[in-house]
C-alpha cells in the first residue's frame, strides 16, 4: 500500500476531529485528495489554490537566493568599498556573502512562516475550516519587502497584526480587502519608522555601526536621489540588483524573469503588469518633461528624483517587485479586464508620484498598491455598470422591422453599437 493510500485511509478515519484541519492542510499540500464528486459534469483543473501558490513561490525562489547573496555583498562592500573590477563569482556568489544571508535573511523567512502559519492554523481550528493556503505566498513575500536588519520581534508583531486584522477578521483567504503582506509592511512602517526608512537600515550592521569610527552608509539609490546627491551605482548595478534596498526588491532582472514565468504559467495578470509599467513610465516622463521645461530649478528638493529618466524608475526601489508580485494578487486586485488596466496604470502612476513628492521617505509603492486595493472593487463596479449600460443601449436600438414584400413575417434587425 502506498503512502498516498495510507494517508487517505487516515483521512477518512479521522474526519471531523478538532485537529483535522491541521492534518488536512498538510495532506492536500502534498497530494490531491482521493475524493471525487459523484454527480453532474465537472471540469477538473490541475491548478488548485495550492498549486497556484506554489508557482508564485517558485518565481520568488531566485529572488530570495539572490537577496541572500546581496545581503552579504552590500554588507562587505559598505565596509571595504565596492570591488573595482566586479566579477560575479569572485565578489558576489561567495560563501561569506551567503553566510550573511543565512544569518540575516533566512531567520526572517522562518519567523514569517512560523508565526503566520501558526495564526492561520489557530483560526482554522477555531472556525473548523479547512486550512487556507493564503499565507504560503504572503509568508514568502514578507521577508522580501522588509529591510535586512528588521528585528524579529517587530516582524512577529507586524505579522500577527497583518494576518489577524488584515485578513482573518474579513473571513480569511480570499475575503481580504488589503494585501496582507503589504498590510504587514505598512504596519512596520508606521509603527517603527526608524527601522523602515532612513539611510541605515538597508545594509546589514549599518545601524549597529552608526556613530562609531567604522560607520557605514546604507543609503538606497532613491535616498541619494531624494537628497540630490551623487551615487556610484551604474544602470547595470540597478538592473541586476547589486544595490542596497529591502531584502528582495533590488534585482529587477530576476523579478522580471519571475514575472515572465508567472505570465507564462497564467498565474498573474499580464494586463496589470503591463499597465502598471505604463503608468510608471507616464508619470516618470511627465516629471522629466517638467524638468526639461525648466519649471523647477536644480536646487529644488524634488530635482533629483524628477530628473531621473522615466524608465529608470522601474529598476530602482520596490516598484518592480510591487508590480510583479503585489499588484497582481488575484484577491485584492481588480477582477474585470478593463478594470485591471485602470488598476495597474494607477498603481504605477501613483507610486512614482508618492516617490517623488514624499520628502521623508522616497518610496511609495506599497502605499499606492494598498490605496488601489481599496479602490479595486469600485473600479470593477463601474466597469460592470458600464458594460450593462452599453448592452442596454444595444438592446434599445435593436428594432424589429416588417418585411417589405408580404408584411406578415417579421425580421429581427440588430443594430450594434
Amino acid at each position, binding site marked *: 500500500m502506498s503512502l498516498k493510500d495510507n494517508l487517505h485511509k487516515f483521512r477518512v478515519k479521522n474526519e471531523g476531529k478538532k485537529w483535522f484541519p491541521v492534518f488536512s492542510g498538510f495532506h492536500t499540500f502534498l497530494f490531491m485528495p482521493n475524493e471525487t464528486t459523484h454527480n453532474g459534469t465537472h471540469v477538473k483543473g490541475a491548478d488548485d489554490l495550492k498549486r497556484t501558490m506554489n508557482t508564485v513561490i517558485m518565481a520568488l525562489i531566485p529572488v530570495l537566493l539572490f537577496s541572500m547573496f546581496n545581503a552579504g555583498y552590500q554588507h562587505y562592500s559598505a565596509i571595504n568599498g565596492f570591488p573595482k573590477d566586479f566579477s560575479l563569482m569572485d565578489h558576489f556568489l561567495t560563501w561569506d556573502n551567503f553566510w550573511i544571508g543565512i544569518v540575516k535573511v533566512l531567520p526572517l523567512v522562518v519567523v514569517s512562516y512560523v508565526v503566520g502559519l501558526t495564526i492561520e492554523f489557530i483560526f482554522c481550528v477555531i472556525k473548523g475550516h479547512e486550512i487556507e493556503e493564503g499565507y504560503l505566498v504572503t509568508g514568502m513575500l514578507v521577508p522580501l519587502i522588509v529591510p535586512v536588519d528588521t*528585528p524579529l*520581534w*517587530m516582524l512577529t*508583531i507586524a505579522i500577527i497584526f497583518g494576518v489577524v*486584522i488584515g485578513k482573518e*477578521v474579513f473571513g480569511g483567504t480570499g475575503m481580504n480587502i488589503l494585501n496582507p503582506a503589504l498590510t504587514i509592511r505598512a*504596519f512596520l512602517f*508606521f*509603527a*517603527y*519608522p*526608524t*527601522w523602515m526608512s532612513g539611510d541605515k537600515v538597508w545594509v546589514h550592521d549599518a545601524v549597529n555601526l552608526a556613530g562609531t569610527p567604522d560607520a557605514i552608509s546604507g543609503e538606497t539609490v532613491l535616498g541619494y536621489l531624494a537628497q540630490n546627491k551623487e551615487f556610484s551605482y551604474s544602470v547595470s548595478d540597478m538592473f541586476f540588483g547589486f544595490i542596497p534596498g529591502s531584502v528582495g526588491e533590488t534585482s529587477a532582472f530576476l523579478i522580471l524573469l519571475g514575472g515572465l514565468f508567472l505570465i507564462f504559467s497564467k498565474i498573474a495578470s499580464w494586463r496589470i503588469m503591463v499597465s502598471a509599467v505604463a503608468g510608471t513610465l507616464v508619470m516618470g516622463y511627465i516629471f522629466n518633461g517638467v524638468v526639461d521645461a525648466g519649471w523647477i530649478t536644480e536646487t529644488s528638493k524634488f530635482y533629483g528624483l524628477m530628473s531621473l529618466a522615466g524608465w529608470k524608475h522601474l529598476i530602482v526601489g520596490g516598484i518592480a517587485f510591487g508590480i510583479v508580485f503585489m499588484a497582481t494578487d488575484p484577491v485584492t486586485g481588480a477582477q474585470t479586464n478593463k478594470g485591471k488596466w485602470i488598476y495597474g496604470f494607477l498603481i504605477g502612476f501613483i507610486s512614482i508620484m508618492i516617490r517623488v513628492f514624499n520628502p521623508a521617505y522616497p518610496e511609495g509603492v506599497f502605499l499606492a498598491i494598498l490605496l488601489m486595493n481599496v479602490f479595486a472593487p469600485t473600479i470593477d463596479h463601474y466597469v460592470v455598470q458600464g458594460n450593462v449600460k452599453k448592452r442596454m443601449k444595444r438592446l434599445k436600438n435593436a428594432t424589429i422591422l416588417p418585411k417589405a414584400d408580404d408584411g406578415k413575417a417579421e425580421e429581427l434587425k440588430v443594430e450594434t453599437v
Partner: protein
Amino acid sequence: MGLLSKKDTNLILDPLADNNPITIQVLGICSALAITAELKASIVMAVSVMFVLGMGNVVISLMRNIIPSKIRIIVQLIVVATLVIIVDQVLKAFAYELSKTLSVFVGLIITNCIIMGRFEAFALANKPWRSFLDGIGNSLGYGIILVIIGFFRELLGSGTLFGYKVLGDPVNKTGLYATGYENNGFMIIPPAALIVVGIIIWVQRSRNPALVEEN
C-alpha cells in the same frame, strides 16, 4: 430599599456593557479616535462628557413639557453649548496644558452623537432623576471605552501611563527598552484607536453572540 431601585440601577449598568454607546450603538466614535493617545486626556474627556451629559439630561428633562417640539433641537443645542463652554473655561483655568491637548475636541462635545442621542431618546420622555442616572450611565459606558483605548495606546505607543515611564526610559535604554523593545509609533496615530475599538467590539460580540446584528 436603597437610593436606587433595580430599574434605576439598570439605567447605569446597561450602558457599561450590553448597551454601550460606543461599541453597541456606535456613537461618539470621533472623539474616541481623536483624544485617546494619552490616558489622562481620555479620563478628562470622559469626565467632561459625564458632566455635560448628566447636567444636560437633567435640564432637558426639567424643560421637557415646555419645549415646543419643532424647536427642540435648537433648545438642546443651546443647553449643550452652555455646559460645554463651562467645561472648556474650567479646563482652561485649572488644567491649561491638558486643555491644549484636547484642543478643539472639548468644543466638539457639542457634536458628540451620544449627547443629542440621549436627549432625544431619554431626557425628553423621563423625569429628571432617571434622566440624570441615564446620563451618568451612558457617559460611564463612553468613559470606560475611552479609558481602555487610552490605556493601550499610551502604554504601547509611548510606554507611559499618566505620563509615568512604566516600561523604562526609551532614551537611556532602561527597563524593557534594554532588551531592544521599542515604542509602537502606530499606536500614537488615530487609526490605531479605530482598530482598538474594532478589537473591543470583536471581543465583546464573540463573548455575547446575542449582540451580533443580523444583516
